[in-house]
């Protein structure tokens, strides 16, 4: 520290900030510094607030397993308490210069001269700033006098800690309701709601809280239309002055729990001058390969920088301080890249290769080095060799590496060697990854009648259709000679698209070109369509929004990019569903081919994206000599016939509209139970539990029914699985046959449970082992099948922590879905969207 200015100020004492501070402390010790050259500023009263806020006893996982930890602090998987204790011990032992209760409110300046304004009004000066404030944001404060009194809490650790107190809970969201209900078991609880209803809550919470409020025997009551105005402490208790609809009211209580949501950190970060690539909430600030933002001297690490796991955050903390000190070091994930590049036919250093690759791919040329590096680390690298000696040699080389890694679990990703001519994927496979060609050639053979063959070369990419629409691959992809490919998983790609405009527009553009080619001019070349592709527009609709209406004059058609559309026709007073359309289909083309009047109303079944093609562009396309105009006309007439016929069968339409209301417009594989065959034996649930570690993933008796068709609560394997969106360790995958499943790297964070709109994911402890079938049958030993709801997890299961569980459509069960094969009466069946119409069976 020179003249009151720190060399480095680290903001946020989460895993990233702690590790950074520890490194700075270490370097100070090496230099025998007399006073710390850095300061760690933490807004809360203790370290690692995000982890403090995990549920009590939560098992913290050290994913990804193949990444080594590089930090002066220790971190291994363990309970929340253990992890926090270890860090507490490290903080003390390494004399880290940390200041608690030092929330940074504003950061200004740049390298050499930063000023950080704290909540207390005090200013801290520093030459460099490391921002490690995570993504959780700070809880929104009450904003009234007394908001920071000791009895006013903004989170709740363990509701069972309090007994026979009077507790005021402020808020109307899910966390407020859940806290209030839990506390009301042994306390008098008053929930204070600013509005007259609980409109933001999930259904389950809503029912529970309303029932508790109206139940005179419960200890929960509610003040509607009420807001706290001031809080004072009086003789160990607190007095809250409230504005109620009947005027002012004073309530005396022991404690207040305020759950008012969080303030996302973005505004604060932008306030420091940091640029974000776009306005999307998921956007990540632009950073250099040294984690430096556009503000010189201001570094960003941890989850705020887009790295969602603790170990990554800690490694970056270490690295960033080394970088600031001018030390050049290879990042901790360097060896991972070595393994990934090991089998490539180039003899070059990792960094050189990275640089070379990036320059070879025009779309990635603009990416910053850090983002590209991250992309490659999360991807598979595939290399093809001519069969024979070369391929064998490469295989041997990889086998030697394998030996060196000595069966390390989990195995880091290594180069995947394939032979020339090998299939990369087949038409019809479900796949969500995205491929970039770094070298060589790849052949794509369309699976439709045209059977066109396209050869792609260095710098081009493919697989974007499945990535964007969630539908199966539409072509066979074959590796050519000596090709090198990067296969990037969906989550990584989406993250990149959200944070980089050039990547997004590049992928959008090629998607449009390829869709236009497929639909209208199968033999055209990309450059022929360049011009038109720039003129069509990408449209987005919310679920329920109307794309066009029956009776309108239409002047465009839509190609569905993702999501689905329901087409309805008026029949008397009713709207009859005549078709359900999905990604890749065209709607409204008749308007451009003969009958300009829309004969159906098109409504988005779920969130929908389309390519809208107007008349002039359409005419330009079909006037080319290679246009498949006959096919277009044939398909349009067929569509018109089908929808006219369907209009005459409203019984099918009503079933369809029920299915669409249930969100099945984005499903790929649904469990449907015929109530007129179901004897309620729950054999399906039992079979599910028995084939899945004792935990059933479906709830037969729940869900909605229409006539005899019952959709139980079970995963429907969405085209674009919502659950995958924010999984920190990327543990959710889609198998080639479409099953969406969770692997063992799940850290139990619960994001997927929240993100799935259909409530099919549950977090649960491992179930105890069951006695063998014979033991149970003959001696009635242990719990019977299907009783997993009531089991008591053993200590080992608790230590392991809860993990997300959902239907995997029996991806590992050779006999196919166990629920279906176990149903004695044939009531349970798995149904694909193409079979929806057949649900309206004629006779059985």
């Amino acid at each position, binding site marked *: 520290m020179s003249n009151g200015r720190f060399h480095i100020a680290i903001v946020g004492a989460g895993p990233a900030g702690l590790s950074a501070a520890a490194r700075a402390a270490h370097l100070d010790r090496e230099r025998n510094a007399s006073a710390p050259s850095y300061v760690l500023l933490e807004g809360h009263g203790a370290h690692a607030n995000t982890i403090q806020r995990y549920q009590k006893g939560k098992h913290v996982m050290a994913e990804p397993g193949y990444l080594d930890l590089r930090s002066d602090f220790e971190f291994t998987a363990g309970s929340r308490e253990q992890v926090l204790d270890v860090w507490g011990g490290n903080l003390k032992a390494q004399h880290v210069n940390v200041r608690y209760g030092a929330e940074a409110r504003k950061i200004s300046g740049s390298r050499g001269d930063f000023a950080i304004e704290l909540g207390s009004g005090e200013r801290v000066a520093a030459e460099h700033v490391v921002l490690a404030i995570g993504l959780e944001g700070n809880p929104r404060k009450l904003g009234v006098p007394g908001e920071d009194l000791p009895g006013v809490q903004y989170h709740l650790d363990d509701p069972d800690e309090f007994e026979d107190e009077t507790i005021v809970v402020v808020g109307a969201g899910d966390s407020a309701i859940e806290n209030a209900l839990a506390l009301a078991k042994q306390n008098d609880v008053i929930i204070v709601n600013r509005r007259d209803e609980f409109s933001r809550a999930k259904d389950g919470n809503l029912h529970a809280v309303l029932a508790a409020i109206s139940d005179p025997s419960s200890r929960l009551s509610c003040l509607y239309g009420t807001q706290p105005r001031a809080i004072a402490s009086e003789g160990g208790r607190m007095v809250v002055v409230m504005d109620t609809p009947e005027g002012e009211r004073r309530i005396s209580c022991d404690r207040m729990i305020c759950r008012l949501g969080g303030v996302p950190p973005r505004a604060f970060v932008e306030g420091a001058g940091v640029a974000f690539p776009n306005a999307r909430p998921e956007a990540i600030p632009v950073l250099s390969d040294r984690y430096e933002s556009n503000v010189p001297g201001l570094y960003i690490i941890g989850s705020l920088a887009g790295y969602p796991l603790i170990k990554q955050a800690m490694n970056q903390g270490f690295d960033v301080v080394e970088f600031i000190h001018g030390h050049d070091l290879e990042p901790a994930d360097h060896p991972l890249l070595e393994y990934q590049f090991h089998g490539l036919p180039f003899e070059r250093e990792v960094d050189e290769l990275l640089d070379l690759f990036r320059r070879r791919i025009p779309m990635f040329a603009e990416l910053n080095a850090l983002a590209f590096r991250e992309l490659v680390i999360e991807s598979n690298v595939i290399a093809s060799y001519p069969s024979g000696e070369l391929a064998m040699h490469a295989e041997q080389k990889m086998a030697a590496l394998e030996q060196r890694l000595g069966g390390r679990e989990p195995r880091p990703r290594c180069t995947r060697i394939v032979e020339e001519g090998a299939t990369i994927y087949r038409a019809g496979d479900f796949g969500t990854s995205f491929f970039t060609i770094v070298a060589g050639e790849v052949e794509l053979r369309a699976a439709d009648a045209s059977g066109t063959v396209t050869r792609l070369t260095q710098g081009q990419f493919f697989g974007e259709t499945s990535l964007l629409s969630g539908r199966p691959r539409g072509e066979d992809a074959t590796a050519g000679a000596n090709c090198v490919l990067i296969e990037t998983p969906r989550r990584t790609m989406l993250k990149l698209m959200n944070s980089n405009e050039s990547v997004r527009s590049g992928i959008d553009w090629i998607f449009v070109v390829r869709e236009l080619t497929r639909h209208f001019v199968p033999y055209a070349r990309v450059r022929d369509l360049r011009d038109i592709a720039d003129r069509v527009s990408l449209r987005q609709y919310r679920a329920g929004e109307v794309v066009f209406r029956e009776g309108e004059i239409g002047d465009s058609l839509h190609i569905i990019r993702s999501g689905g559309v329901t087409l309805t026709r008026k029949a008397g007073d009713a709207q009859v569903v005549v078709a359900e359309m999905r990604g890749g289909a065209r709607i409204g083309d008749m308007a451009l081919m003969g009958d300009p009047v829309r004969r159906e109303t098109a409504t988005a079944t779920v969130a929908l994206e389309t390519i809208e093609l107007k008349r002039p562009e359409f005419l330009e396309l079909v006037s080319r000599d290679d246009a498949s105009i006959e096919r277009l006309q044939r398909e349009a007439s067929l569509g018109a016939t089908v929808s006219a016929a369907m209009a005459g069968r409203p019984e099918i339409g009503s079933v369809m509209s029920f299915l669409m209301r249930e969100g099945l417009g984005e499903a790929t594989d649904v469990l*449907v139970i015929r109530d*007129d065959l179901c004897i*309620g034996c729950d054999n399906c649930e039992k079979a599910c539990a028995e084939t899945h570690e004792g935990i059933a993933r479906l709830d037969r008796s729940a869900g909605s*029914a229409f006539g005899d068709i019952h959709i139980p609560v079970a995963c429907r394997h969405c085209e674009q699985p919502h659950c995958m969106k924010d999984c920190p360790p990327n543990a959710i995958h889609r198998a080639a046959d479409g099953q969406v499943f969770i692997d063992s790297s799940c850290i139990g964070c619960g994001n997927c449970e929240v993100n799935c709109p259909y409530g099919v994911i549950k977090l649960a402890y491992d179930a105890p082992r069951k006695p063998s079938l014979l033991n149970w*049958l003959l001696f009635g030993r242990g719990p019977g099948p299907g009783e997993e709801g009531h089991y008591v997890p053993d200590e080992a299961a608790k230590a392991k922590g809860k993990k997300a569980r959902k239907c995997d459509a029996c991806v590992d*069960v050779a006999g196919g879905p166990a629920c279906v094969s*176990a*149903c004695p009466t*044939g009531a349970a069946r798995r149904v694909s969207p193409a079979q929806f119409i057949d649900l309206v069976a004629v006779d*059985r």
Partner: protein
Amino acid sequence: MIHESLLQHRNRRYLWWAVGLVAVSFAVYAVPTGSQPRNGGTWQGYLLGTVAAVLVVWLAWLGVRKRRYGLQGSSVQGWVSAHVYLGTALLVTATLHAGFQIGWNVHSLAYVLMCVVIVSGLYGVYAYLVHPRRVAQSRAGASREELFADLFALDADGRRLAEACDPEVRVAVESSIARTQLGGGVWAQLTARDGSRFVERDATQARGTASAPVANTDQTAVIEFVAARLPRATRRVEASNLQDLLALLTRRQSVLRRLRRDIQLAAALKIWLYVHVPVTIALLGALAVHVLVTFLYW
């Protein structure tokens, strides 16, 4: 067609197997036995007997197969379909095996037990084919849990409303809720017998004297009790409370009816298995003795 019933399974494939088995059984039976009487002792009898015994063991094996979840190759529905058709055919095969000779002995015991199992099985198929639709209709889209949740909510509301009424009404309503009967023993479930009661106390009765509860089947008595008070209400609030109570009690009556029907149907769907399975075990025992005795006294 995506869903098919267990009889329709695979175009009634196992019906044809069963028809075949019956035909072959008759053919074997028709072969002249020479001087011997037609019974289990002839070679024809042994042949039919072996087939029948193997079939019984295989039929009983369903209990195990059903619980071996996630097995490859066959579906439980296929097994049940075959079970049902071949099990029925067994009646013919076994009868022909016995040559219609029934007496008071261990051999006939096995036969009778088998008949009981088969007859109960036939009822089971009937129940499986007919009741599910009724269950669905009576629940009308709600699950049993939801019906119970409705009932509990109505109970709570009922108690609250009754609180505001005079003591007689309060006692009547509270006791009618407390003494509502649902389910019960197997017989009560199957017959949907309703032993609900409530305490009727009229205003002239001295305070503190206990009144015996009276029958309140289908909640009609308590509804009539409340309805009867209505015309005699003296205050506006009282009348409106009673009206609310009346509406609530009739709603509660209909929920109870649906629940009772649901329980009844669920019981009917299961009850036969309490005959089918234990008698199967007895049958397996009797069959073993039958075989043993036959060979011992050969």
